[in-house]
Each structure stands twice: as structure tokens, then as C-alpha cells.
């Protein structure tokens, strides 16, 4: 009996694994094949002949290439602002006596959960309009920053709490100013945490569609998430050869960062990574 049950549970386990694996993998396969196919298709077919011409065409498209650069600029800019300001804020929350500490932390969680998505874009668009920030990178970067900061602060605060205070105390004894101490003592120790937040912020912004879609107007300023919709025929159907090649190019930085994080830190789960 126990042998049968053992075998049965093994079979069930493999069946379950295969089904779940297929559920996740099947939609992705198209992106691995279509970019190398000379014929634009939505179907899953082995590219015959295998070609890199689609990528050549995409590389030759200056508009599409500039859009990737725009994405780097927007995601990189947000990453820098978020990481720096969140580090300082997290440090202050952990190491200074902050009045209304509980109110502040709960308020941050509350506002970042409530003011989100399309609902937030209605007032944010009008605010950007009033400040003259529509169709500017500053507007896009600051909007992303506001949304990402609360989570970034909480992730970093956990890292700061994990640091021994003795380094900072001896820096203080040696007469370092608070800013010198943060720059020369805390930030080097906090590098893993800052790295996690930087990568997280970059990936969030890199893949986002709604905020630049609402806030930007000029085609030349568009990031890749929106420029991908420019590979259309005059009849309005997507040119699948170019779209799929561009989609793969655009996804690669995220895949590379995932592999990097996985190899370097292991894709550990930070309790509130999306909080």
C-alpha cells in the first residue's frame, strides 16, 4: 500500500510540475522564436531560415533606438533619485529620534497603497500640467519617485537596522560630520541594500507603461514601452518581425538584472518588496 501511495504521489508531483511549468512557459515561447523568423507571425514556429535581419532593421531604426536610450535615462534617473533620498530617509528613521515615527511610517504605507495606478494619474496629470511638467522627463521621474519612495525607504530601513552601530559611533568620536559619516561609513556598508533598491526601482520604471504614456507627448521623448507601438503598417496592423525583435531587446536588461541578482544575492524575498 505505502509503495503504491509513494509511486502515486511521485506521479502526481511530476504531473503537477509539468502542467505548471507549461502554464508559465507556453506564452513566453513566442518571444524566443518570432524575433528570429523572417516571416512575421503570431504562431509558434521554428524560424526557417533563422535570421538576424529583424534585429538589423530595429538597430537601423533611430527612433526605436532613441526610445531605448530614453528608457535608460528615465529608469536610471529615477533609480538615482530614489536610492539616494531613500537611503538618507531610511537612515534618519533608524538612527534619529523622529517625532511622530509611527504616524509617519503608517502614513507612508497608507499613501503609497492608496495613491496608485490610473486613479493617481488623474490628479498627478493635472498637477504636472499646472507645474509645466507635462512632456518633461523631470515630471515622469518625479512621479515615479513619489510612488516608489515609501517601499524603498522600508526596504532600506531594514538594512540599516541590520548594521552594527559601533562604526558610526567611532566615526562620531573621530569628529565626522553626520554627512561625512553617512557618505564614508554608512553608504559603503549599506551597499547591498542600496543595490537591491536601485535594481528594484530600475526594473519597476523600465517596464512601466502608464506614467510615461499619460505624461509624455513628444514622440522623440517616448521610452521603449510606448515606442514599441510604432512598428505598425499604415493599415494599422503590427509589423510582427520588428515588434517581436524590439520586444526581446527591450526585455533583455530585465532578464540580465534578474540573472545578476539571482547569482549575486539569490532571488531572496524581501517581505515588502512591492509594498
Amino acid at each position, binding site marked *: 500500500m505505502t509503495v503504491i501511495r509513494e509511486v502515486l504521489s511521485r506521479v502526481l508531483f*511530476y504531473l*503537477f*510540475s509539468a502542467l*505548471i511549468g507549461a502554464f508559465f512557459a507556453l506564452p513566453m515561447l513566442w518571444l524566443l522564436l518570432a524575433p528570429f523568423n523572417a516571416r512575421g507571425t503570431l504562431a509558434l514556429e521554428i524560424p526557417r531560415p533563422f535570421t538576424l535581419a529583424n534585429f538589423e532593421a530595429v538597430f537601423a531604426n533611430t527612433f526605436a533606438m532613441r526610445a531605448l536610450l530614453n528608457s535608460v535615462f528615465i529608469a536610471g534617473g529615477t533609480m538615482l533619485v530614489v536610492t539616494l533620498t531613500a537611503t*538618507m530617509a531610511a537612515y534618519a528613521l533608524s538612527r534619529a529620534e523622529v517625532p511622530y515615527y509611527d504616524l509617519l511610517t503608517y502614513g507612508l504605507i497608507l499613501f503609497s497603497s*492608496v495613491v496608485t495606478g490610473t486613479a493617481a494619474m488623474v490628479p498627478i496629470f*493635472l498637477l504636472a500640467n499646472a507645474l509645466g511638467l507635462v512632456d518633461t522627463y523631470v515630471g515622469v521621474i*518625479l512621479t515615479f519617485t513619489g510612488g516608489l519612495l515609501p517601499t524603498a525607504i522600508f526596504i532600506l530601513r531594514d538594512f540599516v537596522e541590520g548594521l552594527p552601530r559601533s562604526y558610526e559611533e567611532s566615526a562620531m568620536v573621530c569628529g565626522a560630520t553626520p554627512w561625512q559619516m553617512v557618505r564614508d561609513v554608512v553608504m559603503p556598508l549599506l551597499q547591498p541594500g542600496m543595490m537591491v533598491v536601485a535594481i528594484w526601482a530600475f526594473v519597476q520604471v523600465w517596464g512601466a507603461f502608464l506614467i510615461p504614456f499619460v505624461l509624455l507627448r513628444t514622440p522623440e521623448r517616448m521610452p521603449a514601452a510606448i515606442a514599441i507601438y510604432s512598428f505598425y503598417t499604415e493599415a494599422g496592423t503590427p509589423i510582427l518581425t520588428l515588434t517581436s525583435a524590439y520586444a526581446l531587446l527591450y526585455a533583455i536588461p530585465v532578464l540580465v538584472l534578474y540573472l545578476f541578482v539571482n547569482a549575486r544575492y539569490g532571488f531572496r524575498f524581501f517581505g515588502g518588496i512591492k509594498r
Partner: protein
Amino acid sequence: MTQRRPILSMPVGLLFLLPAMVFVAVFLVFPSLWVLWISLTNQTLTGEAALRPRFVGLANFRALFDFENWMVRGYFGNALRNSVLFVIGSALIGQAGLGLAIAWAFYRRRGIWRELIYTLAILAWIIPDVVVAFMWVAYLDRDQGTLNAILSALGMGRVDWLIEQPLLSIIIFNTWRGAAFSMLLFSSALATLPPSYLEAAAVAGARPWQAFRDIILPSIRSHIITDLVLITLWTFNTFTPYLITAGGPTFRSEVVSIYTFRIAFQHFEFGRGAAVAVVMMLINLALALVYLSTLRREARAR
């Protein structure tokens, strides 16, 4: 922890907090209050009402809750109903159920299958929005799509998923897209359980299902609540389905986030758009308060 002298003085601490707090105040707190005012006006993008929006009282909200054609496609009731089905189907059943099933199936297991499935689920979670949207449009295509190719190979008929079953399509899509979060959360919750719990149950002769129901589920209860609240919040606010069905055909997959977008950014009726945004934010607020109260309960329990 013993109370020690803070390393930073209060003024320096506040100075360090200042830049982050300014961004949060301007781009989160202020918009959430300003939207209340906009929702009481007839603000538009261009024309007279753009320069001098007029106070219209609760007219926008009355239009929203106009029960005359509340459930007619393209109206708010229809979008709310779609959102409820979308959240129940893709978040509460799809993501949480699948995430828990995977976490439980690979509980205390290592090996290639675990690596493979965790990697695939995480990739589905982190690939950019527009890229997953193109994948799924290709996947669900009536004539060439992979899903129909498999179904017809199994002898089943082809379905024009995005036209005939638009809501079901985005429900399955969003299950695929977000299951990784629940999977990771439940995996780390299960990892904290002492093995003796299950060994004791096995000695007592409990079946795996009984052990799961009577031991595992109660011990990760607070994680389950946290997970359900967060994925409900995110699923309710996600805009990605727009990239797959654009809410159509004829508003059949129009969820509230897409409805808001259409009113505010396609019709440019900001007053009405703000009224929907206020309703959305109130729903978010209710969910966030449930979340905060579980956080506080956990903090007190620790």
C-alpha cells in the same frame, strides 16, 4: 532592544528625511487631497472649463451612481462588476491559489523542477508590461495562437479568446502575471515552520491533506491575509489588461482602472475622472487599513 542615544540629532534626522518627504508630499499626499476638489468640479483639458472649472457639487458622483443605466456596458456599474470578477478570479483564486499550490508542492524540496518553475514564474512577474502583453496577444490569437494550436491538437475547437472570452482572458493572464508574488510569500512563510509540526502530524497518522488543512493553513494565516489584501489592491489597480483587450470588445473587459483612464484621458473629462478616482482610492483605503491592522497585530505579537 535597549534604548540607546540616537546617533543623529533630531534636526539632522529631519534634514535627512526632508528630500524624500518633499517628493512624497508633492506627488502622493497632495494629489490624493486635490483629487477630492477636482471631483467636485467640471474640469476638462481644453476650453472654458479647463481655465475656470466650475464647482458642480456631487454631480459627478451622481452621474457615476446613476442607477438608471448602471449596469449598461460602458457605465460604471459594469466596470465595477468586471473588476470584482477580475479580482476574485485572477487574484484571490488564481494568484493566491496557484501560489499556495506551488509553495506547498515544493515545500522542503530542492532540485531542477523547483528551480525551473520558480524561475519561470518570476520571469512572468518581472518582464515589462508591453512585452507580456504582446506575448499574450500572440498566445491567445484565434488562428495562429499557441493556445488554440494546442487545443485543436487535443481535438477541441478553436476559441477566439479575446473576442468571445475577454474577461476570462485577462483573468488567466493576470493569474500568470502575478502568481510569483504569492508563491514567494507563501514559500518564505512555509520555510519558517518548524519541521517537527509536520513530523508530529505524520506520526499521529494524518494524511497530507489533513496536515495541510489543520497545521499548515492555520500557522501561515497572517501571511495569507497579507497576501490576499496586497494582491487584491494591486489587481484592482492594474492597468496592464488595457494592453491586451483595451477593455473591449464593447466594454466587456472594461475594469475600473480602464474605465477611469477612458473618462479622464480619452474623453478628458477630469471632473468625472476624478470622481471615479476618489471611489477607487476609497476602496484602496479600505484595503490598506485592513493591511495596516494585520501589520500592527503582527508587530504586537512579535
